Every structure is written in C-alpha cells, then in structure tokens.
C-alpha cells in the first residue's frame, strides 16, 4: 500500500487525509485532514467537540483510525500504541502535563530510557549534563536536580518539551498548552516554540485564544463537526473569518424553542466567588426562562453550577431561590428550596449506575415514599414508573441496573429523577452530551415544554447551536467571569465566541 506523494510540492512532515473515528454510534471524527510542513507552526482550531482532540489522539497512537490516511514525511503510518508514535518522532504535550512529582526534573526527562554506565547502573552525571544542555538550548533556567513537585504548569510543559526534543521529536503537538499559563509564561513558551520551528521541526498548536493563534502560527486549519473545513495562511485571514468558519452552520430551526411567558425571578446569584475557579458571578434566572451558560471547556461554567447547587464550596456570595436563601455547600438545602441539578458526568455524578432504574428515579424523593416508616421496593417502583413513562425511558424492567442502558436513556433517568422532585429551577449541565440525535431532540422539546410550564432553567452547553437555539438569554463565561449577557435575538455565534475567547472581550459586553 504505497501512498502517492501529493502533487503539490514535497511531502509534509505530518499529513492526515480524511481520517475518521467513531466510538460506538458516536462519530467523533468524520473527515479530519491536516497538513503540517516541517519548519512551521500550524494552528488547529474549532469549537468544543469539533474533533481536534480525537485527531490528535490518532496521531499520538492513543486511538486507531477507522478510515483515512496518516502520512509522516510521505510514508503511510498506522500506530497501534503511543510507543509506536513516539518512536516515529511524534510528541504530544497536553494541557496538564503528567510528570512524576517526586522524581527529579532529569529523571522525568529520561524516564524509562536512563543512560546506563558500567555495571548497568544509571549514569546520573550523564543524565544531568544532558538535561542541562537541553535547557540551555531552550533558553530556560530550571535546575535539573530539583523534584518536579512544585514546578509551575509552564515549567512542567517545558520539561515535556525537553523530553520531546531529547527524543528528537520531529512533530510536536501542543494541545491547549496556554490554558493555564500567565502572560509571561506564554511568551516564554512561544519563544521556545519559535526556536523549535527554526530548527526545522513541525509544530501543531491547538488553542481557543485567537490572539495567540495569530501571534504564533504560520497556517491555520479549521475544523467543525468532526470535519476539516479549510486551511489558510495566517497572513491572509482575520479573526472574523476564522470564527465564521468555526461556527458556520445554520442554527435555530434544529431546536424547537417555543416562547414561554417569563415570570418573576426564581434564582438569584450574587457575587459568587471561589478561588481559582470563578470570580464575582452574579445573575438571575426567571420563571419560564431558559438561560444558557456558554463558554469554553474549563471556563468555569460547571464549577459555577455546582457551587450554586451546593455540591461544591464557594468562598463568597449568596444564592437565593424564590426568595429563600440556600445554604452554601448543602445540596439538601438546595433541593428543599426547589432546585434540581442534572450534572455533567451522568455516569459518575448523575446516576448510581449499579443501582436499579427505579431506585435511581426515586432517589431524591424516597424519603417521602415510606409508609409507617417502611420504604419498600414496591413503593419505589410505583413512584418511578410514571416518571419513566413520561420520559419514555426504554428499559426491560424497573429493577434492571441503569448501567445496562444507553447514554440517552440514562440521561432520561437522571432528568426523571429530578422532575420527580417537582423543582422550580432545573440546572442542566451538558443536557445532550454523548446521546443520539433522536433523544437529543426529545430532551430539547422537554426543556422547552418545562419552561412553558413556568420552570426556570439554567442550561450549560458546549454546543453553541444548542445554546443559541434553546436559550432566551445567553450568559458567556470566560476564565471564571461572566463576560457577556446577550438576549436571544442578539445572540449570534460570533458574539458568543468573541466573549468566550478573551480576544475581544469588550466588544461583546
């Protein structure tokens, strides 16, 4: 199976053509293409869920592609493991480096391939010398003898890069390396990246921050919905055209939002702060209103929701539900006040998967199901059945484990569990993540209907079309702060993305 070299110029350092990957029924990558030349820095941009991470993982050998081609210097590759990918000179640096905290910087760089001297003893002196040389080359000052514990994220990334260079990596992929870095650290990372480019290596840079992309990268590939959209030279484009390419689909008609009468304020959040997570967050949600909480992954949306419901602590601020003050860090107080919370990770947080459908659905209200102090399985089933029916949960029997169900049905069980509490406010984090298209539409119709009945809904979603289609009002969170509050008729993909990616924060607010 020899791969013909593309007619256009010499072989690229890394090239992917129409690569596809599905996990079960979920297609994570439809048609991913990427062409990175040696001696250049290439940006890969796209919304959350556009397939960037899956693409990177295929290159890294974490996943095996279902279709398409992967070429390295024109040679076709098929990586079965990360070791095979590394051996071919590919290095991936993730957002959160995974160093061994108790080992020294040097030991981390040479983990698993320590130079040995006489008698197969590890040659520490040689290791330290080589580490020092690497750091000098990168122009950084890190003591190779110190433990990795306590290093900043930026320094940890530099160590990962040093490791990659010592392996003589020709392709370096950095997956959102700047998300946790300060301005100075970003500058230093970029300086290192540029010097690596000048050595003739190929770099792929994934980021949501357009200012950085335009500052650092030579070319940009845009992805959307698991597919390649376009690749452009940075010099020939601008932020607006990139954003347009990222979101570029018709939104609105997919999501059957029916207008609901908006009533009085149900949820009032004032000055909510949690160190390192979010700062001075204030907003309101009114009866019949769906408020969308948009922003990038890691911006602090879920953290805000969790603090409001009380599963996480917060340092300052207050939460009021229908005039009643909700005690901090006490989900029971929130539930009593009429709050319901469908969390982000349904298998870990939403459900007890090893417990039955009936017990899950009646899980919050079971205290009230006891007769003469006796809570029976029969009472739980009786209480759960109508809710399962209303949401059309598909299960063989109510005593089957929730683990046996599909993701969409599990999500219905979580929603049923909370609707059974007859809440005034429903907080729903990623309502349709990882569920099939049919169930997705059902969930959207349900949310719209609940709002129509006067429920206040706070919806967090990483899918921009979902937010724009469903929400009466969009709150945009960026780096732990609400940067925009946009009414439905003014919300566009462009102004939401702008507010979400610091690049032109003031334009949106």
């Amino acid at each position, binding site marked *: 199976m020899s791969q013909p070299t593309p007619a256009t110029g010499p072989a690229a350092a890394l090239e992917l053509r129409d690569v596809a990957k599905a996990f079960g029924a979920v297609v994570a990558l439809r048609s991913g293409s990427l062409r990175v030349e040696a001696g250049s820095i290439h940006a890969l941009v796209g919304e959350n869920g556009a397939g960037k991470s899956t693409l990177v993982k295929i290159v890294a050998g974490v*996943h*095996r*592609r*279902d279709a398409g081609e992967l070429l390295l210097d024109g040679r076709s590759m098929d990586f*079965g493991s990360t070791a095979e990918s590394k051996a071919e000179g590919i290095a991936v640096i993730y957002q959160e480096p995974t160093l061994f905290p108790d080992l020294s910087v040097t030991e981390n760089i040479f983990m698993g391939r320590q130079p040995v001297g006489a008698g197969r003893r590890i040659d520490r002196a040689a290791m330290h010398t080589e580490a020092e040389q690497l750091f000098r080359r990168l122009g950084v000052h890190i003591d190779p003898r110190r433990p990795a514990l306590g290093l900043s994220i930026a320094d940890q990334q530099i160590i990962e890069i040093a490791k990659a260079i010592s392996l003589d990596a020709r392709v370096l992929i950095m997956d959102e390396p700047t998300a946790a870095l300060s301005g100075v650290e970003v500058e230093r990372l970029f300086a290192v990246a540029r010097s690596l480019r000048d050595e003739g290596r190929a770099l792929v840079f994934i980021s949501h921050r357009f200012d950085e992309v335009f500052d650092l990268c030579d070319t940009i590939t845009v992805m959307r919905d698991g597919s390649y959209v376009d690749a452009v030279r940075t010099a020939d484009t601008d932020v607006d055209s990139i954003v347009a390419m990222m979101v570029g689909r018709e939104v609105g008609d997919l999501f059957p939002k029916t207008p609901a009468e908006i009533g009085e304020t149900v949820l009032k959040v004032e000055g909510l702060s949690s160190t390192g997570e979010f700062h001075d967050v204030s907003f309101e949600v009114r009866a019949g209103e769906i408020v969308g909480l948009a922003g990038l992954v890691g911006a602090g949306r879920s953290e805000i929701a969790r603090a409001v419901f009380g*599963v996480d602590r917060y340092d300052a601020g207050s939460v009021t539900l229908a005039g009643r003050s909700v005690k901090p860090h006490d*989900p*029971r107080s*929130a*539930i009593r006040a009429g709050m319901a*919370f469908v*969390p982000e990770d349904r298998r*870990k*947080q*939403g*459900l*007890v*998967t*090893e*417990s039955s459908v*009936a*017990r899950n659905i009646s*899980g*919050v209200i*079971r*205290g009230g*199901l*006891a007769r003469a*102090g*006796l*809570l*029976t*399985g*029969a009472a739980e*089933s009786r209480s759960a*059945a*109508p809710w*399962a*029916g*209303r*949401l*059309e*949960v*598909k*299960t*063989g*029997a*109510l*005593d*089957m484990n929730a683990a046996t169900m599909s993701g969409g049905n599990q999500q219905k069980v979580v929603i049923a*569990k909370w609707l059974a509490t007859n809440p005034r406010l429903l907080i729903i984090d990623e309502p349709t993540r990882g569920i099939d298209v049919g169930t997705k539409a*059902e969930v959207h*119709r*349900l949310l719209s*209907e*609940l709002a129509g*009945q006067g429920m206040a809904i706070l919806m967090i979603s990483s899918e921009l079309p979902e937010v724009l289609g469903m929400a009466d009002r969009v709150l945009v969170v960026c780096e732990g702060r609400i940067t925009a509050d946009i009414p439905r008729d003014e919300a566009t993909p462009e102004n939401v993305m702008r507010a979400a990616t610091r690049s032109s924060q003031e334009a949106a607010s």
Partner: protein
Amino acid sequence: MTTLQATTRSYVAHEYPLWRRLLLTRETAIIAVLVAVVFYSIGNVENFDGPLTLTYLLLDTAPILLIALPMTLVIVTGEIDLSVASVVGLSSVLLGVLFEAGYSIPVAALVAVLAGVACGALNGFLVAYVGLPSLAVTIGTLALFRGVAAGLVGTKAVTGFDDRWTDLATAKIGATGVPVVMILFVVLAIAFAFLLHFTSFGRGVFDIGLNSEAAHFTGVPVERTKLILFVLSGAVSALAGVYFTLRFGSARGDNATGMELQVIAAVLLGGVSIFGGRGRLHGVIAGVLLIGVISSALRLEGVTVNVTNIIIGLLLVASVMTPSVLAALSGLASRRNNRGPSPSSAPVGVGTQER
C-alpha cells in the same frame, strides 16, 4: 407528541420472577450451606445434637453476631471499622473499673456504651469529615483504644461481678437452650435490617458504597451517614463488650483481641462486598452462624484450632473467589456468543488467546 403528557409506556417492576430473585442469591447459597452443615453435623458429629452444643455455640458467637450488624452497614458504604475489638476491650475494662469503684452494673454498662459511642464518633469524624481512609484511621484507633484499655487495668483482671448479672449473661430462655442474649441480638438484628433495607437512610448507605459522588449529587448526606454508622459500630461493640465481660466474669484489657477479623471474615462470607454497595443482613447472619457451626462441630470432633482456622480460611477464600470465577465464566461464554466483526481498535492478539 409532548413528552410530559403521554404515558405511552408501562413497566414491569422486575426483570426476573420472585422465586429467582429470592433463591438465586448469594445469601440463599450461604443459608443452604449453613443448613447442610447443620444437618450433616447432627448426623455425623457425636454430641452435636446434645443440649449444650447450641447454647455454647450461641454464647460464643453472640459478640460476633452483634458486631457484624453495624459492621455490615459500614462495609456496605465502602468503609471498614477495624477498631471494634478494641472497643470491646475498652468497654470491658470500663465496666470492671467502674464496678470496682462501687457503681452498679447498669450504670457502669451505660458509661461503657457511651464510651463506645465516643470511640465511634472519633472514627466517624476522622473518616467522614476529615476525609481520612477508614482503614488507616481504624488501624490507628485499634491500637489507641486497646492501649487505653490496657492502661486502665494493666495486666490484671477485674472479677467478682454480681452473680445476678453474670448469670443473666449465660441464662437460657426457658428450656430451649437458647441464651437470653439472643433476645438482644434479635431485637438489634431486626432494627438493623429495617435500617439497611427499608429506610431512605439504608438506600443512601448502598448509594454511598456504589458511587459516593453520585450520592452526594443526589442529596444523600454522605458525611453524616458515615458518622452515624461508625457511632453505631462503636455503641454495639461496647454493648458486646459488656456481654463479653459478664459472660466470662472477667474484665481484662486484652478481652476479644483479634475479634475484628473474625467479624469481618463472617461479614464477607455472608455476601457483603468489601468494595461496598452490596450485601444483605440475613446473609451476614448466616455467615456468622456458618463459621460458628463449623468451629463447634470440628471442636466436637477433636480437631485442633489450627486446623479449624485453616478450614474456615479456605472457606472464606473460596466464597470470595466464587463470584469472580462465575463472572469470568459467564464473561467467557458471552464473548464466545457475540464475537462479531472485531473493531479495528481491538488490541492485537485477542483473537489468538481463545481456547
């Protein structure tokens, strides 16, 4: 069309018929083994059906039966309490010391039980609110409580308790041969079975053991539940300590040393998962009795304690292994059945390992 009004589906409550849910369980298996061992022993072991066998069997296993009740709940939450035998020792010593100081047995017993509550509260606070692992905490308090107990009386023993009370500890119910202490056990067993299997609190106990994070997200008071269970464990252990002391008429700092492992062994034999989330109280009771009956029968046969321990140890290992073996077998069977077109992501070599 609207989802909230249409109740198009109806549901059956159970996947399997009643007999299957009742009979094909781990608990039923343990009860069946217990019944088989009892009948075999009656037929083959000399004096097993004698009048004193049942009495002594129950007198001996009563403390383990009692402590196994709260221990089951603690283990179902995924925690463990290794300090129970030390609480027995501490309670025993307190009873002795207070009795010597002139307090009546009821008063001394009450103080001992309150001390057990305090011990349990310390364990529970460290585990639930400080967030330390219960294994480490209770290994520590195992030594701590035992040390306090030994410190209070040294190596001597307090004896000379009121006959009235020591007699009560060994008394039988009428002519049945069943000790009076079984009344206390039955009352507590019903209370704990009710708590674990028929209350919202008990559902929370299972939820915590299966998925503590989801339990927290559902409003289960995870910390408070754990604290309550450790307090119950301390209280019941102290109660068992009072019984232990009166039964032998001797309060010593080293009373019941090592009993925590007997209790945990019996709980696991009774079908409780050490990882939490699974277990039923009737299985645990059968598990304790099974160990009691086997020890008793072997002792009557003149088998040494060492051999008895080997047999019980093997039984426990076998009982813990059985579910894994069964799961592996059924997993193998289902893999054979639905071996479809292998996805390209399947690790290389799977296909070559089939037998």
